[in-house]
């Protein structure tokens, strides 16, 4: 009897998820046709921030390994994919000081595959970075991952024949649209929330709660932390690749620690260990970033011209971050999730009361 009930509920959930995805698909379809380019751009950015935030939350929030290396993984994704999807002619134009080395100078492959390749290489580096660092804890891990991310940036600045150095890559084809970014975002959410809700996810969370106890329960620390780093880096690479093709210009300093800070803001404000919190805050973040631009451009205030204040956006974000850290210590969602299951629960509450009563 109980089993049947559960099955029914599962189907209902599945059904709801399908409907949710359908709604998103229809929305993207309409948006892509009717919205103006500016709005679409913001919505596309939302998707990318969701990818970045959720993947960082896997490492920092669910596994409890405080990484500051996300920007590094992103830049690897962005550069690797750009090197693969740019046309040879475009490369020649870009690398006018130091020519690009063979074979990158001649190859060109489809966008989708190059994004995946960006993710895979980022994951590989995630493993190489993660492997030696995984025995460090807390702030030491934070420093080491930050150091790695800076090393990547410095190397990219100096490896002219591959990355074009500080000149960066300009005029990248803008392949990233709403479909790519939201598709990838939904896949990221699907992948990471399923991971969290699996036996592996429980192992990751147990590491966050108490490493020694987790190990005593048979959780292989090295393997599982490495797993979190690799998966997180993979999606960071994907996010970086999509971002590169959206903003169409990348240079190594695009992916400085400031970038990591922005994603940390999203994750902390949304709540370490809450995917829904991250998704909500990532979306708000992308939209606010645009709205707050008004402060940074000249304004007409009752006839008087006010000059724009550059940097105001980030200042406001840093204040929000500090307020959340100091007053809402667990972030917006406090590590909890808002889920369809709860949604169902709300509607089936009377039902449950009767069941328990009988």
């Amino acid at each position, binding site marked *: 009897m109980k089993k049947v009930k559960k099955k029914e509920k599962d189907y209902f959930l599945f059904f709801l998820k399908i409907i949710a995805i359908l709604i998103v698909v229809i929305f993207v379809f309409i948006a892509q046709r009717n919205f103006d380019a500016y709005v679409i751009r913001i919505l596309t950015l939302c998707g990318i921030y969701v990818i970045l935030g959720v993947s960082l939350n896997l490492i920092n929030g669910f596994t*409890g390994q*405080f990484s*500051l290396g996300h920007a590094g993984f992103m830049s690897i994704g962005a550069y690797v994919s750009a090197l693969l999807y740019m046309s040879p002619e475009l490369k020649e134009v870009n690398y006018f000081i130091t020519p690009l080395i063979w074979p990158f100078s001649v190859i060109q492959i489809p966008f989708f595959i190059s994004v995946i390749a960006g993710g895979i290489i980022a994951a590989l580096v995630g493993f190489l970075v993660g492997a*030696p*660092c995984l025995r*460090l804890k*807390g*702030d*030491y891990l*934070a*420093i*080491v991952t930050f*150091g*790695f991310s*800076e*090393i990547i940036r*410095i*190397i990219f*600045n*100096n490896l002219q024949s591959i990355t074009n150095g500080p000149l960066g890559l300009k005029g990248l084809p803008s392949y990233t649209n709403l479909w790519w970014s939201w598709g990838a975002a939904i896949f990221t959410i699907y992948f990471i929330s399923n991971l969290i809700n699996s036996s592996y996810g429980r192992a990751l969370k147990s590491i966050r709660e108490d490493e020694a106890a987790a190990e005593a329960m048979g959780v292989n620390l090295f393997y599982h932390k490495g797993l979190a780093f690799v998966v997180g880096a993979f999606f960071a690479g994907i996010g970086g690749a999509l971002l590169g093709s959206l903003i169409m210009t990348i240079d190594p300093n695009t992916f400085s*620690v*400031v970038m990591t*800070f922005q994603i*940390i*803001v999203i994750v*902390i404000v949304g709540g370490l260990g809450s995917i829904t919190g991250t998704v909500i805050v990532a979306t708000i973040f992308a939209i606010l970033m645009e709205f707050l631009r008004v402060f940074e451009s000249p304004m007409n205030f009752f006839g008087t011209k006010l000059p724009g*204040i*550059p*940097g*105001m956006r*980030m*200042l406001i*974000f*840093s*204040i929000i*971050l*500090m307020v959340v*850290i*100091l007053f809402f*210590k667990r972030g917006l969602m406090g590590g909890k999730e808002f889920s369809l299951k709860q949604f169902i629960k709300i509607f089936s509450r009377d039902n449950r009361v009767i069941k328990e009563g009988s």
Partner: protein
Amino acid sequence: MSLNVFLQNLINGISLGCLFALIAIGYTMVYGILRLINFAHGDIFMMATFFAYYAIALFSLPWGLAFFAAIILTILLGITVDRIAYRPLRDAPRISSLCSAIGMSFFLQNLAIVVFGGRPKPFFRPEFFDQTFVISDIRIQSVSLITPLVSIFFLLILTYIIYRTKTGLAMRAISKDFDTAKLMGINLNQTIALTFAIGSGLAAIGAILWALRYPQIFPFMGMFPGWRAFTAAIIGGIGSIRGAMLGGFLIGLMTIMIVAFFPEQAGYKDAFVFVLLIFVLLYKPEGIFGEE
């Protein structure tokens, strides 16, 4: 490389090393007491240069007075940062204060961009610091000579405070054992505030000397000196004041010498610093000169 060029680099390296030592003290003292990496320290360093800049540019104070005012303001800033961002989180998990430190660094940088503007500003260099001595082929700027003298003077004062006064004793007690020190009736908040004051004051002195040496100031300028100094603190064994000084010298000499001996690789000099940092954290986390 001729002996003269080498000597010139050596003096430069020592002078730079002194600056890192001054900054590193702030990291090491705060870490020793609170087990907190004060990510905002590099930005406090940056603020000091702007304070000095505006004291001269806006109030046209004579440079000595302007520098003094900047140091005082920076000390107040350091204490305020502790009061606002760290003190409320003393009993929270360490990761919260780490987040807070990152947030504070982010905040100060953006505050500086908004208030002072993002463009680099030329720092006023009084004539006193602008002379060049020529001693048989070696050309040395007076800053490079003044820096070590000033630094060593203040480092001696610091050593005196830490090892010879009651306050220093309280600091050492807290850094040995936070809870016991609390039980023994040491006024924690006051001692911690003082730690921030000393760290920020030394950072301010370092910052002004830095700006005299590289007379361009901008909101992100604290980052690299900050990280190098932090590396110095780690190499010296974080929590150890003597270690921070030695680490600072080592990092200063190293960066100068890399540029001098491998000019083609100069672009990688910060990468070397980070590699060193990672290496020490992984294989000798107590630091090379680790003592206390």
